[in-house]
C-alpha cells in the first residue's frame, strides 16, 4: 500500500462529530482513507493521523479540511515513510499500527501555509 499522502490533523474535540467531519471531508471529494489513527491528546484537542489514497482531489481535500471549523491545522508529512507494525495481543494477530517516519512538514491552517 502506497498512500498518496500522510497527514496529521489537530482538531478541537467536543464530541466524536469531529472524526465524522474529518472523514466526510475526504468522502465528499472521493479521496480514500487507507488507514486512520486518532486519539485525544488532552481534554480539548484531538490528533488524527491519516494515510490518504492518491487522487486528483487530494490537495483540494487537504486545503478544505484546513479551513473546517474546529480544525486547528492539517500537517502534510511530506516525505513520510510508513512502517506498518502488527502488535500481537495474547499471542494472536493483534492490531496493526501505522508509524509514519518523516523529516519535513507543511502546515496548513485557515489558508496560511508554513513549514
Amino acid at each position, binding site marked *: 500500500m502506497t498512500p498518496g499522502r500522510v497527514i496529521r490533523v489537530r*482538531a*478541537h474535540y*467536543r*464530541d466524536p*462529530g469531529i472524526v*465524522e*467531519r474529518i472523514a*466526510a471531508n475526504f468522502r*465528499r471529494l472521493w479521496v480514500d482513507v487507507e488507514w486512520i489513527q486518532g486519539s485525544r491528546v488532552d481534554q*480539548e484537542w484531538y490528533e488524527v493521523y491519516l494515510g490518504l489514497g492518491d487522487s486528483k482531489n487530494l490537495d*483540494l481535500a487537504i*486545503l*478544505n479540511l*484546513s*479551513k*473546517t*471549523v*474546529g*480544525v*486547528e491545522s492539517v500537517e502534510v508529512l511530506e516525505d513520510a515513510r510508513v512502517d506498518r507494525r502488527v502488535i500481537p495481543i495474547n499471542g494472536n494477530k493483534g492490531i496493526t499500527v501505522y508509524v509514519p517516519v518523516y523529516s519535513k512538514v507543511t502546515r496548513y*491552517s*485557515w*489558508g*496560511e501555509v508554513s513549514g
Partner: protein
Amino acid sequence: MSGARLLIDSLKREGAKVIFGIPGLTNMPLYDAFYEDLEREELRHVLMRHEQAAAHAADGYARASGFPGVCTATSGPGATNLVTGLITAYQDSSPVVAITGQVVRAAIGKMAFQEADTPGIMFPITKYTIQIRSVKEIPIWIKNAFYLASTGRPGPVVVDIPRDVQLEKVEKVEWPERPYVPGYREFRTNLDREKLRRAAEIMAEAERPVILAGTGVVWSNATEEVLRLAEMLIAPIVSTLPGKSAIPHDHPLYIGPMGYYGRAEASMAALESDLLIVIGARLSDRTFTSYDEMRETRKRFIEINIDPVDLERAIKPDVGLVGDAKVATRALIETLEYIGAKRDRSAWIKRVKELRDYYSQFYYVEEEGKLKPWKVLKTIRNSIPRNSIVTTGVGQHQMWAEVFWDVLEPRTFLSSTGMGTMGFGLPAAMGAKMAKPDRVVVDIDGDGSFLMTATNLATAVDEHIPIIAFIMDNRTLGLVRQVQDLFQNKRIVGVDYGPSPDFAKLAHAFGALGFDVHDYRDIEEYTKKSVKEDLPAVIRIPIDKEELALPTLPPGGKLRQVIVSDPRKSH
C-alpha cells in the same frame, strides 16, 4: 432564568430583531420565553408556513441587510425542512443563524418522537452546527454562531438545543465579551507589498483589462472601490450572477453578468481581455464553463479572494491577493495611484461597444401578440423606485432577470445562484422586506418556482409583509423544457402543467391582491396599484411556453459556443 430566556437575551444582545419560524414541541420554550419581547415590540416573530421558507426568509433578510438572519424550527421534521433553505444560504455565503429544538437529552439517539440527528444532518450543509449540552453554554454559543455566520466566508450556523436545556434554570449568567471557537480563525487580509506592486504593474501594462465582480464585492460592500478601480483603468466590468447585485447597471463601464446564461457580450469581453481582475468570485462552473477555454486565451489573472483556497482552486493567478475585497481593492487603487501609469484604452472600449451593439440585436425582439420577457422586466423596472429590492425564483425567469434586470443599487438583487433552489423568491422577498421595510420589494418568479413555497403568501397577508410577486407564467418548467426541446431531440416530457391554478384567484383566496396581466400597460398599472395599496400582491404575466432563456450554451458547452437566437427558427 431559564435556558430559553437566556437564549432570547443572547439573540437580542447579538442584534437579532426578527425571528422567522414555526413552533413545535421542542422549541416551544423559546416561544414562551419571547412572549413579552413580542408584546414590547423588542422582537418580531414571523410565523412561516414551512420551515424551508423560514430559512429562505432569514437568508433574504441577511442578504438585504448584511446582518445575520435568524430562523427557528422544532426537532425532527421541522429541522429537516430547514435543510434546503440552509444549503441555499451555504452555497451563496449568506449568514443565517438557525435555532432548532431537540428532544430531551435523555431521549437523544433513541428514536424518540420527532427526533432527528440534527448535527449529523446539518454538518455537511452548514458552516457549523453545534448541539448544546448545558444551559451554561447558551450565551457563548449564540455569540459564536453570529461570529461564525458573519466572518470569513459567511454562512449558516445551526444551534441545536434540547428541550430540557431550554427549560433548565441558571442562577448567574456570565455574558461572554468575545466569541471563542477553538479551531476557527477568520481569514486574514494579508497584502504583500511586492504582490500589490506587481499587480499594479500588470494592470498598467494591460491593453484589454476586464474586472470580474463576484459575491465578495457584495458582502464586503466594495462597490465604490470596484467602480473607482474600473474608472482608473478604464476597464469594463463584468460580474457573476450573484455579483450582479454589486454593480449599478447604469454605470457606463458595466457590461453585465457573464457565464452560462449571462450576457454574451460580457462573456466575450472576458474572453477577449488580456487581463482579468477577479474580485471576490470563486469562478464556479456557471461563470467559467470551461477553465481550459480561459487558460487558452493566455490572458493574465489578478485575483482577490478572502479565502486563500478559492484563490487558486480554479485558475492559478499571476498575482493572488488574499483578503477582503474592499480592503484589497483599495490597496490596489493606492498602489496604482503611486505607480501613476496611464494607458489609452479607447480601442478596447470601442471593441466592447461593438460587442454590446452586436448582441443587442438578438435581445430586444418584439413579437406580435406576445409579452416578451425583456420588455416585461423593463416595464417592472420602470414602475418601481431605483432602490427597490428584487428576489427571484429559479428557472427561465431567473435567467431573463440575469440578462435583463437592471440593478441600480447594491444589494438589491437576491437570487439562489449556487444551489438554484426553486421556491426561494417569495420567502426571500418577505425576509428582505422585514430587513428594509421602507423599500419596495418584489419577487420575480415563475409559475413552477412560485408554487413550491406559495403557501407563505398566507404569512405575507397575516403578518402584513407587502411584497409583490410577479409570476412569469408559461405553465411549464421552462428551463428543463428548453433543454429537452433544443438538446434532447424535442422529447419534451414531465414538464408541462395544466390550467391549475388561477394565480389571481389563488392570491384572492389568501387575502392578497391578485391581477391578470394582458398587456404591458397592465404591468405598470397593477404594480403601482400594489405599491399604493401596501398589500401583498400577485401579478400574473402570461409568457409563451416556447419562449427561450437566451443566451444559453449547449450542455457542457464553452462560452464561445453561446446561442443568442432561437435555433428552431434558423431553418
